[in-house]
């Protein structure tokens, strides 16, 4: 016990470097986003750089505060386009998370029921696509879904359709891409809790006369809820801000908030509005992020 305490002190010093790094490159940048989201777009100035003058030092801070304005947020709230983006991000994230749960659960369940020596292999097989480039996996789907791609060829050959179906630039393609990319994130936490499930509990349930389906809903599912929670959050949070998948696979008629941010920043060069969109997105994500943080701490640290 005392040895543990002696060990803890130098272990704490190990935090210094990563702590400073994260404060400088993770926490402080949010301050800049907030600051710029409250500043005004300077039309007269060159398209981007000097919207703000931090180089003047902290003496100019007071003046900077006076210049703050909520105009960018007013724009975000008043313009129907932005509200639509906001809502669409939520709808897409909720829908795809549900689909992921429906697909991921049976797979994770199947993995957990495999003989012990096969479980490691199955887990490896699920992880490997996560290691292959995410962009490449989306590109692989573009190959298949394009006008004269493999999918349409198969459908035509089977006489299921008479003319090629438009798959690219549709919501179905986007959902497919999202589900495809995030599936490992759903499967792994689910599998982790399902594999830990004590088989004796299932035996007890069936000894007591529960049908397999009842055993599942009364025993397995409730016990797997921590895994469900982790999987849902791991998918939902990044999907809300997803950019690449909707940009490459969905049509351009309606956008998600990540796309708006990208467009305002790179195409319109409107940094204040892009920053305001980032703040809005972040606000949306604060509750799930807090939940996720708690869950992570409980699973990783145990005694904390």
């Amino acid at each position, binding site marked *: 016990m005392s040895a543990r305490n002696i*060990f803890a002190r130098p272990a704490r010093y190990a*935090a210094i470097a*990563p702590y400073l790094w994260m404060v400088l490159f993770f926490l402080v940048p949010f301050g800049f986003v907030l600051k710029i989201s409250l500043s005004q777009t300077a039309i007269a100035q060159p398209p981007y750089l000097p919207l703000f003058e931090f180089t003047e030092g902290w003496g100019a801070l007071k003046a900077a505060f006076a210049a703050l304005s909520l105009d960018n947020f007013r724009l975000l709230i008043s313009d129907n386009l932005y509200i639509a983006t906001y809502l669409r991000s939520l709808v897409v994230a909720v829908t795809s998370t549900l689909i992921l749960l429906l697909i991921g659960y049976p*797979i994770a369940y199947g993995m957990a029921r495999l003989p012990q020596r096969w479980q490691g292999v199955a887990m490896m097989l699920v992880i490997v696509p996560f290691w292959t480039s995410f962009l490449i996996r989306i590109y692989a789907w573009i190959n298949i879904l394009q006008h004269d791609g493999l999918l349409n060829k198969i459908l035509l050959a089977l006489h299921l359709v008479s003319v090629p179906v438009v798959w690219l630039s549709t919501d179905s393609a986007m959902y497919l891409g999202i589900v495809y990319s995030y599936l490992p994130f759903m499967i792994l936490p689910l599998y982790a809790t399902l594999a830990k499930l004590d088989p004796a509990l299932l035996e007890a349930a069936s*000894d007591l006369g529960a049908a397999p389906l009842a055993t599942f809903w009364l025993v397995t599912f409730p016990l797997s809820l921590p895994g469900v929670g982790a999987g849902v959050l791991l998918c939902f949070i990044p999907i*809300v801000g997803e950019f690449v998948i909707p940009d490459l696979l969905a049509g351009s008629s309606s956008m998600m908030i*990540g796309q708006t941010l990208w467009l305002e920043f790179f195409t319109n060069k409107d940094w204040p509005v892009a920053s305001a969109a980032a703040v809005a997105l972040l606000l949306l994500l604060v509750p799930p*992020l807090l939940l996720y943080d708690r869950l992570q701490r409980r699973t990783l640290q145990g005694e904390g």
Partner: protein
Amino acid sequence: MARRVNGISRFNVTALALGLAFLYLPIVILVIYSFNASRLVTVWGGWSLRWYAEFFNDRAMLDAAWMSLRVAAVSATLATLLGTLGAVALARGGRFRGRALFSGMLYSPLVMPEVISGLSLLLLFVALDAERGFWTVTIAHTTLTMCFVTVVVQSRLASLDRSLEEAAMDLGCDPVRAFLSVTLPLIIPAISAGWMLAFTLSLDDVVIASFTTGPGSATLPIRIYSEVRLGVKPEINAICTMVIAFIAVVIVAASFASKLSSSQGESAAPL
């Protein structure tokens, strides 16, 4: 009873098989078509390596690939150092002031939408008047990937038997010595797995790199992305296949490392 618990039902096997097919088929198709001789991506014109040759003649693509490899190597190394330190502090530091903020900062980038991380880092670099290019992308990737290293190393540390460190100290080692000679050798496999994860994540990123890079220093994913937006090209298939092959080599090495660390059983004996 035993049959129900250990046996696999047809439903389980089907779900698993379909799931794996869904995960792998698109990649297999992409790889096959990268050897297609035809200029039309959708028409099969026989086997050929011409698109691979095309890549090695594409100066801009080669530059981007080189840039990506350098960024990935440097950022993964930095991330491994910082991430391991963070994991040690979280797993062995007990309670300390600012711990909640520390763990929050280390866990949230794992799920933080990349557009937010990218934009916020860019605004910081502009405010610091940093020249954008290799180092800004490297710093950005380090920030993201060190969190993954922390999670990997921390879960390994959590499953390690602490009595080993304590025994070393009872036998007269000071804490640093106990860590270096007892703990570190045991978590080396997790650390190397963390390095490889950081490396592949950096090699994969397009959003954060787009925000933080400067003119003339595009990474490979940025190049691929801008080509992909214009449509499918056989050369891109070839490049993607090479990236996949390269990462596969990295993964095989990583799986050896994790096999060594016996990450399977949680209560596995540490020696």
